[in-house]
């Protein structure tokens, strides 16, 4: 499976993320870009990428943005997703998040998932920030 240069495969993924990977990541300064190339196992019966898969992937990218920007671990509290156009199997899809604001407990994040031609998903989420003392391994 080919991937554009600069992307690192997330080998540490286990469970759901590993079963639905491989997922890739590239850090560009303050941005974290995640990417994957959907295969037939990510599609629904109509040959387009399953909405649940796209939601899961965008969620992970938005969580990665929180970790990278705020250096805090987080869990998703709320996620709103608009499905703009179908995701196509075989396309290289990228997703990234932007932290719009935060306090000690919650971060607001805007996310987008896009293919080579246009945006596929628009997201808006509230991510609960875990205590700085706790170090559970939550995010993949």
């Amino acid at each position, binding site marked *: 499976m080919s991937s554009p240069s600069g992307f690192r495969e997330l080998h540490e993924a286990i*469970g759901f993320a590993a*079963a639905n990977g491989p997922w890739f990541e590239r850090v560009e300064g303050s941005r974290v870009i995640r990417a994957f190339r959907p295969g037939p196992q990510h599609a629904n019966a109509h040959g387009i990428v*399953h909405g*649940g*898969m796209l939601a899961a992937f965008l969620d992970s990218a938005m969580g990665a943005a929180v970790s990278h920007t705020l250096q805090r671990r987080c869990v998703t*509290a*709320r996620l709103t997703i608009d499905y703009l156009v179908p995701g196509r199997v075989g396309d290289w899809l990228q997703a990234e998040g932007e932290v719009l604001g935060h306090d000690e407990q919650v971060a607001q994040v805007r996310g987008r998932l896009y293919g080579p031609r246009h945006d596929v998903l628009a997201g808006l989420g509230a991510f609960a920030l875990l205590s700085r003392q706790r170090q559970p391994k939550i995010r993949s």
Partner: protein
Amino acid sequence: MSDDHPPDDPPAGFQRIDFDRGRPVTFNSHVGTLYCKRGTKGTRDEFVMGFRVHQHMCNPAGGLHGGMMMTVADLVGTMGGGTLVGLRKFLPTVSMTFDFVAPAQRGDWVEGRAEVVRQTRSLLFTDIALTVGDSRILRASQIAKIPSGEGQTFGKARLDRSAEVADPKMSVKGTAA
């Protein structure tokens, strides 16, 4: 997925949903196995989707992955919501909001139910809940598009009735696969 996990052991009344019927595996089978129970019309159990939480559905902390919750909630809205209003078409999702109310653990049996809020000519508004026992783990709301005309049918999904083959009355029908 591979069979390296304990059996699903679904509660009575649940049947495996055979999404692909021998064709190459699609996402709903890949993340599953997913089950469905049909109950009396007009009751909250008219359409129930269920699954057992296994390792391949979990996050690194060992809890049910949010992506799996969203996948099933999406499906409960389009497939379940569509069933409740008598639509056999494939309903593409337009928008969804998910509130991750509580975690679920490996071994939990998760159920999903839809409630239709409103149906217009072109849109279906539904509320979706995922539960473990009596407690809610996910609250979601969905807007799905109702395609004009006949549209596409909901894939090839059928309930797998092979478990009933032991019953001689059912063996004549066999399985849809």
